């Protein structure tokens, strides 16, 4: 009788366990679309069977097992970081590229052509009021457009600084969510799938914004560090980041546009440590791409270099000569020379100049010598860094275009890499280690074969280029 009762008791208990297992399956189905959710499976354990010892056997549930593989999650986050960086680089560099007119039909390239043509026409009638006036209006237009471009780049930099501030805010908010998750985790006795899903969703969102390292602790909590080592979350403590702008007091150019900086919770500058995620893309466009044009504390900026050289070269020629009435030559352009980074933003036509003040006569007394020298600047290949003025400006525009194109290409490829890594994660999660090991070895061998073929293609390409050059 007691055996029958024991059997019924065992069967009843087993039904309870299988009911719980069915609930887990139902929960998996319900949460299939929940961000960060990983399939859960019940851990079932066979109970010892020894009737004489009072052990009636049966089955017991020993909690839940997650199909999540932390290595695979880490790989996805690593690729998402790169994608985040490329995405903001694309946005930033596209905004910069749009400010340049590379066709030459308008904007600065057209203004330069117009100015050199006006010098050429002036050389034919050096005392002609119309030709003189055309020089002044062309120079005025060029000055306006250089200032406009400098102002637009400055505005773009300001927009990016705003985005940097809001990205840092998002990072701090996500860090706060993870810190709360750690607090909650310490209260739980076993893994809560919902809490785990929220945590992993937050981690993936955070990796899109910055390059992070996730260190899982034995108590189930996670510590988050920026790749440079600065902590964001350690146990139940959050360390907030900050963003600021400024020019260091030790900078060569104290009036320069400010650089964007990121600080840790202690106020230390950790900008250089940010190497991934949207934040790094924004910092790159602000502190490298735009700064290379409008300058910063330590560099003049190519647009300022262009504006200064343009003004100094043309002014130098005019000031070396005289007007038809014998008056000393006057500068055509003016700019703020107190700091090299302010040249483009202040370049303008000398407003005190009239047409008759233009010094067409060169130092040797040739009546149109200066006008001819100025017209010849159009083709001079040694005006600035071994290039003509037009060629140098085209280089700035080309740099903007190349940065944008490279960022777009990287973004497209990285989108595929992220999709592929997610697919690999999903394929390998929840599979037994033995099955995984066999499949992964096969995959790896196959991938190596593809990599060898692609490397051969690139080597043959190099060889062919060296043969036909």
């Amino acid at each position, binding site marked *: 009788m007691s055996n029958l009762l024991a059997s019924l008791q065992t069967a009843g208990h087993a039904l309870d366990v299988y009911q719980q297992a069915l609930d887990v399956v139902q929960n998996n189905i319900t949460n299939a679309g929940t961000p960060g959710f990983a399939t859960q499976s019940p851990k079932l354990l066979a109970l010892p069977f020894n009737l004489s010892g009072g052990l009636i056997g049966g089955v017991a549930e020993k909690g839940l097992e997650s199909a999540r*593989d932390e290595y695979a999650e880490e*790989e996805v986050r690593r690729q998402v970081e790169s994608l985040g960086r490329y995405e903001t680089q694309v946005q930033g560099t596209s905004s910069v590229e749009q400010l340049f007119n590379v066709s030459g039909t308008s904007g600065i390239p057209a203004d330069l052509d117009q100015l050199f043509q006006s010098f050429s026409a002036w050389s034919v009638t050096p005392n002609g009021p119309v030709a003189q006036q055309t020089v002044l209006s062309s120079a005025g237009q060029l000055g306006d457009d250089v200032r406009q471009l400098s102002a637009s780049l400055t505005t773009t930099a300001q927009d990016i600084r705003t985005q940097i501030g809001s990205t840092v805010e998002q990072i701090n908010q996500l860090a706060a969510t993870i810190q709360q998750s750690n607090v909650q985790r310490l209260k739980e006795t076993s893994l809560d799938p919902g809490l785990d899903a929220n945590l992993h969703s937050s981690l993936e969102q955070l990796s899109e914004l910055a390059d992070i390292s996730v260190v899982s602790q034995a108590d189930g909590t996670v510590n988050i560090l920026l790749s440079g080592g600065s902590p964001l979350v350690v146990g139940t403590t959050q360390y907030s980041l900050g963003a600021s702008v400024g020019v260091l007091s030790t900078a060569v150019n104290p009036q320069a546009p400010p650089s964007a900086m990121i600080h840790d919770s202690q106020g230390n500058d950790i900008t250089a440590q940010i190497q991934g995620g949207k934040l790094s893309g924004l910092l790159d466009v602000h502190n490298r791409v735009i700064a290379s044009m409008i300058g910063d504390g330590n560099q003049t900026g190519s647009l300022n270099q262009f504006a200064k050289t343009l003004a100094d070269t043309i002014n130098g020629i005019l000031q070396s000569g005289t007007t038809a009435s014998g008056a000393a030559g006057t500068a055509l352009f003016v700019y703020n020379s107190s700091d090299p980074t302010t040249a483009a933003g202040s370049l303008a036509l000398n407003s005190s100049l009239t047409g008759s003040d233009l010094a067409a006569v060169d130092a040797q007394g040739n009546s149109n010598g200066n006008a001819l020298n100025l017209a010849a600047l159009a083709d001079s290949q040694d005006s600035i860094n071994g290039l003509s003025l037009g060629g140098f400006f085209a280089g700035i525009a080309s740099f903007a275009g190349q940065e944008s194109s490279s960022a777009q290409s990287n973004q497209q490829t990285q989108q595929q890499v992220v999709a592929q890594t997610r697919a690999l994660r999903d394929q390998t999660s929840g599979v037994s280690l033995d099955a995984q090991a066999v499949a992964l070895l096969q995959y790896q061998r196959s991938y190596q*074969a593809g*990599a060898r073929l692609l490397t051969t*293609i690139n080597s043959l390409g190099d060889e062919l280029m060296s*043969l036909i050059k």
Partner: protein
Amino acid sequence: MNSLTAEDEFNRHLANAESSVAVASRCWDALDQSRREECYGFLAMAVEELRASRSSVCRKSVSQIRTHVERLSRLQADASRLLRLVDASMSFCRGMIQRIGAAETDRGASGPTLTTEG
């Protein structure tokens, strides 16, 4: 009947290589073995075509240098993009295999270490 010049041959082989790499890129699927094999087939064809291009160049000098260099650079860029995808897959597998290796050491030679109800 006109015979093909070295230039024509070079162009033909290079065009075939370009097309093979483009098709290979479309075929690539890290998780589908048959698609991967298809992809490798096209890559192998591209290698053969480039070797044939090299033979044409070696037999006789080929002109239009700038155009050829640009085309070869584009071909290399396409190959490099695909290589990034392949590399990412390899890196994933390498890490997973290492992780499994670490887990294996916890499981013992004859399979998972059994736990008994305490």
